[in-house]
């Protein structure tokens, strides 16, 4: 029988596999069932900009909100930290809709240009929901006489905002429910990088020590890394369909990731093209180092230099900031660990099957 080397003993232990399964179950169940915070799905009834002194009537549609049950719906517009405007009238209607009227005060700020206003709706059941850039206010040429008389219409302190202590994921426009894909798409790419790094480590180790064990491990980690990369492309594509409206774009990051996957597919073909174990090991170790070195600038350097829709490029925020709040973190970080554990498990299975194959081949 194939002898069990001492350094392979950890592959036959079960605790870390169980841990991986438990973590992934937690991520799947929790990540899919925790609701989203209330949010404003749509705001209609306004052209992009309003002039000072105008009246506007907004209709907002809520998501996960209770506008019809709540008694104390209030709404206000926020200009900056010291200027707020309460609604003049607010009526709730069918299907989580609210009709809100505002009277924009006349000129008071000495400038020409556009300023975005944030719409905040709050009640005691939902807490609050907001829509940044709901309306833009268009300042026109200033009449100095109006400054003193009209300042009073803007409230200088923020109206009372209810808080909601329910555990929920943040609501983001456009993303909506797909925000849960963070746990899979982003985590898959991170886990893929870790697995490819493990493959690289064993490839280098093979070239130094020439033990076939390292070649098998390198090939197994790389294979699972490629699998994760493919899944990352698929989840990303689904995400793109729901947020950008198309399965694939000409975006540089997407294309570079796809090219990186092609390079690694070439690695798999190279491994299958020869049956001589030693030669195959040497060549594929060499190519996998070459591929990894070519892969890093593809997905980390080049996309940063071009304009891109993808988060993390062209000034778009990636991880961190307010996009990854503590409720998302509770599932995102475990998901990375769980995927790495599952990936290592898959790789050890592949490693063991390759070892058996070699054993049978030598018996023949």
């Amino acid at each position, binding site marked *: 029988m194939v002898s069990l080397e001492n350094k392979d003993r950890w592959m036959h232990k079960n605790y870390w596999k169980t841990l991986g399964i438990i973590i992934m179950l937690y991520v799947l169940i929790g990540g899919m069932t925790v609701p989203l915070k209330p949010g404003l799905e749509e705001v209609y009834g306004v052209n992009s900009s309003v002039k000072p002194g105008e009246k506007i009537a907004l209709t907002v549609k809520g998501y996960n909100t209770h506008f019809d049950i709540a008694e104390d719906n209030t709404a206000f517009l926020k200009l900056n930290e010291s200027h707020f405007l309460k609604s003049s009238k607010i009526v709730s209607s069918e299907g989580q809709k609210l009709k809100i009227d505002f009277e924009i005060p006349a000129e008071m700020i000495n400038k020409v240009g556009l300023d975005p206003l944030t719409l905040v709706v709050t009640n005691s059941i939902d807490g609050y929901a907001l829509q940044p850039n709901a309306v833009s206010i268009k300042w026109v040429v200033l009449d100095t006489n109006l400054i003193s008389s009209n300042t009073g219409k803007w409230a200088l302190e923020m109206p009372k905002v209810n808080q909601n202590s329910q555990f929920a994921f943040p609501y983001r426009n456009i993303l909506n429910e797909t925000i849960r894909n963070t746990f899979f798409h982003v985590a898959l790419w991170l886990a893929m990088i870790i697995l490819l790094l493990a493959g690289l480590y064993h490839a280098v180790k093979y070239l130094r020590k020439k033990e076939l064990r390292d070649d098998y491990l390198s090939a197994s980690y790389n294979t699972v890394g490629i699998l994760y990369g493919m899944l990352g492309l698929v989840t990303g594509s689904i995400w793109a369909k729901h947020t950008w409206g198309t399965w694939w774009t000409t975006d540089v990051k997407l294309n570079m990731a796809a090219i990186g996957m092609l390079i690694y597919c070439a690695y798999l073909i190279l491994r299958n093209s020869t049956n001589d174990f030693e030669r195959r090991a*040497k060549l594929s170790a060499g190519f996998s180092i070459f591929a990894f070195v070519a892969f890093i*600038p593809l997905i980390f350097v080049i996309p940063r230099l071009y304009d891109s829709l993808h988060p993390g490029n062209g000034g778009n925020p990636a991880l961190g900031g307010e996009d990854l709040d503590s409720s998302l973190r509770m599932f995102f970080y475990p998901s990375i660990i769980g995927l790495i554990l599952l990936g290592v498990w898959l790789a050890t299975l592949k490693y063991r099957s390759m070892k058996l194959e070699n054993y049978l081949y030598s018996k023949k």
Partner: protein
Amino acid sequence: MTSTARILELIKKDVTAEFRNFSSTSSVFLFSVTVVFIAIKSIVTWDYALFGAILWILVLFSAINATSKTFDSEGSNQKLFYYALYNPVEIIVAKIIYNTFFIFLIFLLCYGLLIFFTDMSVHESFTYIFVSLLASCALSTINSFTSLIAKSTNANNSNLLLSILALPLAIPVLLIMVKITKNINSITEEISIKDDILILSGINLLLVGIVILLIRELWSA
């Protein structure tokens, strides 16, 4: 003999071999000319993005044709002979330099023909030709390295394997060159191509460095 002298000697040997076996060299040039002609005849309106894409795809495929025979003549006996006389780093550096100039020649041929037939003039042609030399060097490094790997597998279809290994690695270089071709000729706005040139140089350094690091291990395969 110093290493430089040995590298020069190897390049000289390659050039001589090329001239002795001129039919295979001319077949590569004939391939390029034919495909340029097909492209010219089938495309009616040209713009610079299309020009760059056609030019560099042509160069890439001709380059793969040309470099697939890099390690062809090296039978196992000759390999032993090399092994005794030269350092593997010298051999691969000689191959890379030789292939760079060969690919650059192919580029000049395709470029000249395309300009001649389509009447598109490229601004700052000296910069462009210098950048193309950099791109030729990157393509040559990729092709020399992958053709060594493909040949070493001793597979029957090693030319096919070479295309499979080399094409994905070459895509970034090609994309950068297409972008540079487009931007260097942009009439509406001044776009700096300095960043792209830096990336290209960076890719070159990275590839040559990793090939020199790996060649000692792979040569004996």
